[in-house]
């Protein structure tokens, strides 16, 4: 807005209005607050009618189509790397029979939700952010608000929901593909016994591992969607602002994902007793 660049009437004599003081770090806190406010209103509006089913399906299809193949391609080598690393370690310790369990735990609990989240944030989130951002700078959001339609309900809620749901479903796929990749490398490259790999599944892994994996995927997908929407709704003016917003959205999502993952893992280990 051009008005922001023009000097104030009366110049420096104007007293600053309350709430506009420049405390260091205030900007970051304000953005954090806005992010949480957006997350809260997305949750609240998810349950309000009219529900945008059509938009949800379109976004769901879009996010799924851009993430399925890359996440599978990433998960095969990832499962293999874990198996190879853990396998060589357990060989030295003489506990080869636990390789299967260790790789399953690592893949299902940690690797799979993170791979899913990184791809959703990187492929889906950046596209959402660019789309919302360019609509914002073209005043489409304001136009929609003026027409009495909430852009959060109409556009953001379906996108965040789609990101969360795709994350949950994709997490199952990535888990399976990752474990299969690990199995393949364990059996054919390290010449381990297939029976030992499968048998150790149930000795260390348990059902809550799968639950936490899906819960993580759900939360990560939600975070990726909300961060993308938040940056898209508040870009700096101009096309360059949209580019910056996309960049920021990916970086912020990644930082948040790893941080939230740490907290969730710590909580999980506290409340779910380890098996065996």
């Amino acid at each position: 807005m051009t008005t922001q660049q023009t000097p104030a009437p009366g110049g420096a004599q104007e007293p600053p209005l309350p709430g506009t003081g420049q405390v260091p770090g205030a900007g970051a806190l304000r953005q954090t607050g806005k992010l949480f406010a957006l997350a809260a209103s997305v949750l609240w509006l998810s349950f309000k009618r009219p529900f945008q089913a059509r938009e949800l399906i379109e976004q769901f299809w879009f996010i799924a189509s851009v993430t399925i193949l890359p996440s599978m391609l990433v998960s095969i080598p990832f499962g293999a790397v874990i198996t190879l690393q853990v396998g060589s370690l357990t060989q030295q310790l003489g506990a080869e029979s636990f390789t299967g369990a260790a790789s399953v735990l690592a893949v299902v609990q940690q690797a799979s939700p993170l791979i899913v989240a990184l791809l959703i944030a990187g492929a889906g989130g950046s596209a959402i952010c660019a789309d919302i951002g360019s609509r914002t700078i073209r005043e489409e959001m304001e136009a929609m608000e003026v027409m009495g339609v909430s852009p959060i309900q109409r556009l953001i809620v379906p996108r965040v929901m789609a990101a969360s749901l795709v994350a949950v479903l994709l997490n199952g796929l990535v888990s399976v593909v990752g474990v299969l990749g690990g199995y393949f490398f364990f059996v054919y490259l390290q010449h381990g016994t297939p029976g030992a790999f499968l048998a150790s599944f149930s000795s260390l892994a348990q059902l809550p591992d799968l639950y936490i994996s899906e819960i993580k995927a759900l939360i990560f997908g939600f975070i990726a969607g909300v961060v993308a929407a938040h940056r898209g709704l508040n870009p700096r003016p101009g096309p360059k602002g949209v580019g910056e917003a996309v960049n920021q959205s990916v970086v912020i999502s990644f930082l948040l994902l790893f941080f939230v993952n740490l907290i969730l893992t710590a909580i999980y280990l506290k409340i779910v007793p380890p098996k065996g």
Partner: protein
Amino acid sequence: MGIEVVVEGLTKSFGRHVVWQDISLSLPAGEVSVMLGPSGTGKTVFLKSLVGLIRPDRGQVLVDGIDIAHCSERKLYAARKLFGVMFQDGALFGSLNLFDNIAFPLREHTKYTEAEIRRIVLEKMEMVGLAGDGHKFPGEISGGMRKRAGLARALVLDPQVILCDEPDSGLDPVRTAYLSQLLIDLNAEIDATILIVTHDIQIARTVPDNIGMLFRGNLIMFGPREVLLTSANPVITQFVNGRRAGPIGMSEEKDATTLALEEARDGAASQELPALVPQLDPSPGMPERQAAKRRRARVMSMLHTLPVPAQEAIVSSLGAGSQPVPTEPDDWQEPAGRTEPDDWQEPDDDTTEPDDWQEPDDDTTEPDDWQEPDDDTTEPDDWQEPDDRPGRWPSHWPGGPR
């Protein structure tokens, strides 16, 4: 009939930059108003704060009993259905074609069938001259078309208040003239309150009933069009004439020294305003503007509070329309501040006749061959007494009412 929008003590600042402060005005119901101002004086911010897109720091905006500036989200969304906003660049949804764009508010807020929606949308598209362009996407059309499509979309819900953000920018003068006419016709047809934010002086001179002007963060003036267009305020005369000499500078501010230098160089710039041009009338076939009647009554009741040139302009514009001579209201009082200007001089009564004036020769007025008409034969045999109700044009006369 449109609804009144009352703004009281509105102040907005971005950080330390005060955009405007303490703006109080009232957009009279059903009338067309224009907000003028040089670029960057916060006209768009003002317009956006009227619909609650920007929350002001202080003050209130009352529409239909709701304070737009401070009400809850839910009330705000309900109140916004009263508004139709035409954004500067149209603000169309890039992912929808023009038809779907214009149909969007109908699909969101009404339960019309697709056939009814189609009828309304096509009617509005024809109104703004976009008939047959429904399948095009906003990215494929010119800025002027986007603007007109934005107007059509603002109109589909039959709003009570229409806000137009710079309808002229990016349009050629002819299209601007058409758009001006369209806005007047709209006002005649649906009687909505219209606010146009612009810096186009041609629109300001021909379209509105009321004009306001923003400059340096203040509302300099808001009132009937004649007041601003006859004002001697240096900011207004400079703006209306589009001159460089005056308080408005390139960078919004012009400091006193530059101003003094300019005046020393150019001498006192002539403060003459261009002649007041009559307001646009609705196109033939349109109903009469109800707002014009209401405004006449309103302006007449406040006539005595207006500056003298504005009073003269109003009276003369009414005289052209053969209006009844205004009478003083019962509670009329001599305004305290209205004294004669110091340089006023009593006209010299004796010198009204030109020197070369000659008394006409009384005896020679009748031509020599003039004959007294025969009184008895003036009426034709089939002459009938006309219907004696005053002002009625008898129906059997040529040109009478159909």
